[in-house]
């Protein structure tokens, strides 16, 4: 990879990646920490993404969204988007902004480990009970807040 100052195209590519949202959550794939790296050579862009969960049904949709967003960019001749397994996805890949967005969507995010005591995203109470380790999507577990009685979900990274 060339380690010179980012070109206009590099900047534009990252802007485009930041505009691609996860289909099931109000968060960009960059804030979610899915982008492993981007290589650009002669207008050909190769993006490598890290899946949160290997079986996530959103992976194909994300790949298609990224590819078509890149191809729409002036100066991009071709774009490949691949998933890579060489580094695991962990919660510290989430940006601060991403964390805030997930919290306002009612999703609690552990600081770094799933084993941390959970906190209700609505009222901040720690008086919560885990209802199920498996939530509506692979990446979430479900809880009930005993203080405000709202059910909520919590991001679950692979162990």
């Amino acid at each position, binding site marked *: 990879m060339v380690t010179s100052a980012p070109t206009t195209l590099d900047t534009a590519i990252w802007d485009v990646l930041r505009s691609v949202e996860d289909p099931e959550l109000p968060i960009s794939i960059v804030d979610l920490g899915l982008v492993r790296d981007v290589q650009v050579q002669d207008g050909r862009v190769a993006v490598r993404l890290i899946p949160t969960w290997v079986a996530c049904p959103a992976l*194909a*949709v994300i790949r298609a969204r990224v590819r078509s967003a890149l191809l729409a960019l002036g100066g991009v001749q071709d774009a490949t988007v691949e998933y890579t397994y060489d580094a695991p996805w962990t919660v510290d890949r989430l940006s601060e902004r991403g964390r805030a967005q997930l919290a306002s969507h009612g999703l609690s995010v552990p600081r770094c480990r799933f084993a941390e005591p959970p906190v209700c995203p609505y009222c901040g109470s720690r008086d919560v009970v885990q*209802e199920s380790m498996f*939530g*509506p*999507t692979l990446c979430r577990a479900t809880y009930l807040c005993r203080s405000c*009685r709202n059910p909520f979900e919590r991001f679950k990274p692979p162990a």
Partner: protein
Amino acid sequence: MPETTPAAPEDPEVLAEFTARVRAGEQIEAGEWVPEEYRFEALRLINMHANSEIMGALPEREWIPRAPGLARKMALTAKVQDEVGHGMLLYRVAETLGRSRDEMIAELVAGRARFHNVFHYPAETWADVAIIQVFVDGAAMQTQGALRSCSYAPYARVLKRICYEEDFHIQLGLDVWRALAEGTPAQRAMLQDALCRWWTPIMHFFGMLDRVSPHTEKMLAWRIKVKSNEELRQQFLRKFVPIILEYGLDVPDPNLRWAEDEQRYVYTEPDWEELKRVGRNGGPKSAERLALRQRFHAQHAWVREAMSRWRARADGAVA
């Protein structure tokens, strides 16, 4: 057992104050005082929604074992899982209004509860999956999307998340739809056939034209109902009829047309007697699906017993 709101005397002044609060856009949190009628109606709505998610898993789950391709199989499993997961959230919300989940589920399994009309119909072919994911979920999105601004805050919160996921289901469904619509003549025929079979249940889904009644007025004032049935049906038609036409399929109603002067779709009035019959669990698949629920409920009686004993023991250890 969840505690119920203490039966306070419904002082007309307190009632008027409640109505004014809600009318001004305020939301009600779990455990706050609400008029008995509000509690009853909100509970009925959320309970039925929860039931529908649980029963709604059944028509589609029949196609999980047969889904053509790994991605389709995973996506369909995920989709049905989402519905069941929504049921889980919704029963929790319903519980805050004073009924236990066990009670609601027992009533559902016994066939004494209601669930949405569309889930009483068969899913005969793989194309039914496309229709359910695009049109049935699309219909549900209109209702649920509107209710995101309802007055009961825990319900509104859960709906916000549910709608996000439903929107994703529609995207996945559209992919199945496109594959069939742009596929072989046999695939297109299969899709058209499914669309024809589902059209009436989908038109029924929104319910009859609302009668102007003090009850409806009150539901609207309390924001337990946000839009009228016909408004939601029109909203659905505006969004989904173009999809049918775009792919060159036939809308299964020869009289359906856009009336420019009225700014609405005109359609053939469906047979409302059928909706009433289906609503009373008298649809073509009601008995069979309830029997399946009952079979597994009975099979798992000992498992539930183990769970409740386990919980009792854990509670005992804590106390």
